[in-house]
């Protein structure tokens, strides 16, 4: 039998490395031990394969969100029903938060980008950056398509350096933005009747491709990050990856996303060294992060704020219910977090933003589903238990709560004589608790 501390520690790992901590999994993994769990969850993991998507209408219309909403629904259902591939899917959404795009691109192309990010989720960062640079949705989102060498569009290359690879202060200047924009010019989209000329007209996403026209690009040598040559996508990415800032930038982002917002420089540097030495293979970096003492330190537990998407998936796992029953879109709207629609090109910020007053409100609304849950099987487990509060906390993976939260659950349990209603109220309160917003 694992001790309470071992259970709490395993819940910590599972909350970070998976999307849905189902009841019993914490105990099961804790019985295997920490190192065996890491081997299973991280070392043996593969990138997810996403070969399908929802059916899209593909009508070109600025105001038509149906396809986008279908994509969000598709993805939330997929994530709520994962079997394995946990960390690969967590990394897929990490990359969505770094290499951002949004509904400026049609949903069908966002779906293709999603499949691309999945394919590389645990692969190689160099290959990922090269492919994302000419990805269709990215070319649309950051204005790479139709950028001419003579007066190039600076949007993509600036964000490529500032947000995707080097970070502010990462050693580039406005001159590198200008030369990089030249180097990446000449690309456009063709085929599939995209963009259609008239509103409402159909386009065919599977036939759209990215093409490069030398005559629209820039054939003269330019100096980009100190390297003077005729540049292209490969040489631009390779040159960026030679910068020492790159591995540090990604290592810091990864740590901030999965562990807590303020890693020490020493921690970042040690992870960056692993990343660089593996020639930007993603899995060794991830394995090093999860095995870093900072991750296993007790202070790391509950130090991370859940994104609303994770809160929703955690609630669905705790209630053992179909995610659709929560009305995910309304929840996302009230939290201001929409998958595939980050607030800006820097992605969804990590941390306290998702603890604001309105977030508690959204979580409280989410918890109300407890009052509509069928008697079996979840409620029954709680109301048949000798320790309904303990069982509720176990079901919601809350192994470490503050004395106030425990006291309020106990008080509520004492106040309600109907065992079914007691179970409902306890589940709802656990999901609204401050601790449920954290992981």
């Amino acid at each position, binding site marked *: 039998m694992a001790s309470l501390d071992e259970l709490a520690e395993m819940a910590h790992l599972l909350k970070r490395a998976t999307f849905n901590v189902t009841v019993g999994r914490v105990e099961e993994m804790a019985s295997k031990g920490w190192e065996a769990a890491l081997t299973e969850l991280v070392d043996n993991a593969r990138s997810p394969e996403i070969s399908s998507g929802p059916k899209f209408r593909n009508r070109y219309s600025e105001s038509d969100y149906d396809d986008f909403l279908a994509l969000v629904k598709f993805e939330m259902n997929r994530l709520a029903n994962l079997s394995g591939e946990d960390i690969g899917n967590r990394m897929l959404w990490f990359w969505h938060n770094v290499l951002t795009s949004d509904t400026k691109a049609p949903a069908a192309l966002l779906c293709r980008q999603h499949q691309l990010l999945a394919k590389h989720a645990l692969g190689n960062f160099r290959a990922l950056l090269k492919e994302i640079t000419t990805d269709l949705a990215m070319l649309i989102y950051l204005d790479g398509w139709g950028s001419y060498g003579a007066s190039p569009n600076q949007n993509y290359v600036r964000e490529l350096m500032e947000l995707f690879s080097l970070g502010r202060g990462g050693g580039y200047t406005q001159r590198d933005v200008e030369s990089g924009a030249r180097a990446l010019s000449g690309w456009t989209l063709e085929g599939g009747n995209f963009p259609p000329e008239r509103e409402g007209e159909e386009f065919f996403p599977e036939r759209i491709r990215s093409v490069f026209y030398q005559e629209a690009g820039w054939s003269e040598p330019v100096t980009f990050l100190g390297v003077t040559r005729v540049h292209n996508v490969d040489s631009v990415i390779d040159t960026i990856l030679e910068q020492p800032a790159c591995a540090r930038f990604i290592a810091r982002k990864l740590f901030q996303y999965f562990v807590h917002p303020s890693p020490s420089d020493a921690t970042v540097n040690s992870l960056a060294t692993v990343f660089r030495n593996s020639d930007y293979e993603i899995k060794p970096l991830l394995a090093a992060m999860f095995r870093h003492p900072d991750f296993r330190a007790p202070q790391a537990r509950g130090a991370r704020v859940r994104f609303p998407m994770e809160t929703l998936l955690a609630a669905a796992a705790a209630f053992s219910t179909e995610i659709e029953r929560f009305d995910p879109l309304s*929840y996302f709207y009230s939290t201001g977090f929409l998958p595939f629609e980050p607030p800006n090109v820097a992605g969804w910020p990590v941390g306290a933003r998702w603890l604001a007053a309105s977030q508690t409100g959204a979580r409280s609304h989410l918890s109300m589903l407890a009052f509509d849950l069928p008697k079996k099987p979840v409620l029954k487990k709680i109301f048949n238990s000798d320790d309904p509060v303990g069982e509720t906390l176990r079901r919601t993976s809350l192994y470490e709560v503050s004395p106030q939260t425990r006291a309020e659950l106990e008080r509520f349990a004492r106040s309600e004589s109907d065992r079914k209603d007691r179970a409902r109220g306890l589940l709802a309160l656990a999901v609204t608790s401050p601790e449920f917003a954290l992981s």
Partner: protein
Amino acid sequence: MRDQCYPKGITRRSFIKVGGISVAALMAGGPLLRSGARAAASTDRRLVIIELAGGNDGLNTLIPYSNNRYFDARPNLAIRDGLLAINNEYAFHPKLTSMKQLYDAGRVAAVRGPGLVHPEALSHFFMFAALRSGHIGGFTQTPGQTGWPGRIVDSLAGSDDLIAGLTLSSSVNPAMTTISEKSASANSTDDGVLPVPEAFYERFLAAQRGMSMLDPTDSSSRRAAKKGMEGFLSLSEFLTSIRPSNAQYPETETARLMAFAASILASTDKIPVLWLNANGIFDTHGSQAVYMQLNLEELDGAIGAFFREIETIRLADGLTLADKTVVAVIAEFGRTLAENASGGTDHGKANVHFVIGKSVRGGLYGEPPALVADEDGSLVPTISLFDLPYTLAAWMGADPDAIIPGGGRLIDGLFNN
């Protein structure tokens, strides 16, 4: 870079169950707005800040239509038709019809040339940090990582007020970060009512109140989560009490936010600072002509409807809400002088900001930037990005040198009173 644009028709109300009971009616303790007096610094003035995040193109907003350099630099993007001339040099963008009316009534000040000269001045995120924090070094350089509007909130909030600044969004804008923790956020669809079944309602809220109490062992994250819950309970009570607007507003996201702003300001004098982000795609690297028409039409309609409504809201002292309210329209940076090949403009430096209200002495302020591109293709700023925040802080009755710690200058004559 673009801003969020939500699907229409999905609102939080759509999943609020019927039969909810007013939080205010049942909640025990902790009222949001106690009747105590505001701090001595209070001037009873209200500031609504609208951010055009992404970097609105100032040059096509306030158009120097008598200058050939403008037309030379923008063969496709220069606006020739439908100009709303305000004098023989400048015109508003054709979609700014309400702004033009307000300008003609002497209520709009256009501040020309605000920006920063800095190696990172073309980064959205460097400039967001500067614009919102009120310091060129960003939030690491301000006390408590506060923003300048947040510091105005700190300096004006009464000690008994639980909330004195609101971001009209699902989360607090960094600019509204306070030390006093009196800053919260609310969506325009929030009505403060939780759909808890009646039999549980009182116990449920009492339990939430209890869970929000701090414990000495709380980590900083858990403390922040508890403060969020406390803020939610206070805010719920306030939101159930606000007077809904029945004025006419356009059916747009920005207009919904401005209608919400009017409702809040009409319902309390304890929340002197509101922040909202206008809906739109302001980072117009491509197809700028289309985006700007949509952006500015939505902004203009919302501002026009807001001022029409607040003129009619009479306060206890006999004045109207319009007498006490100023709207500031700001953006992190402007755009390049020349257009690019995508029918757009890239990141630039100098921009134009607007201040609107009855207290404003309408007209043009600041030196206009010369229409000559610097080495980055940009217009060179003529006044600091922080001079307008400095001037607004002073008008609000706060100490401008405390609000803008790196220093700023008053824009002379911007306000009548």
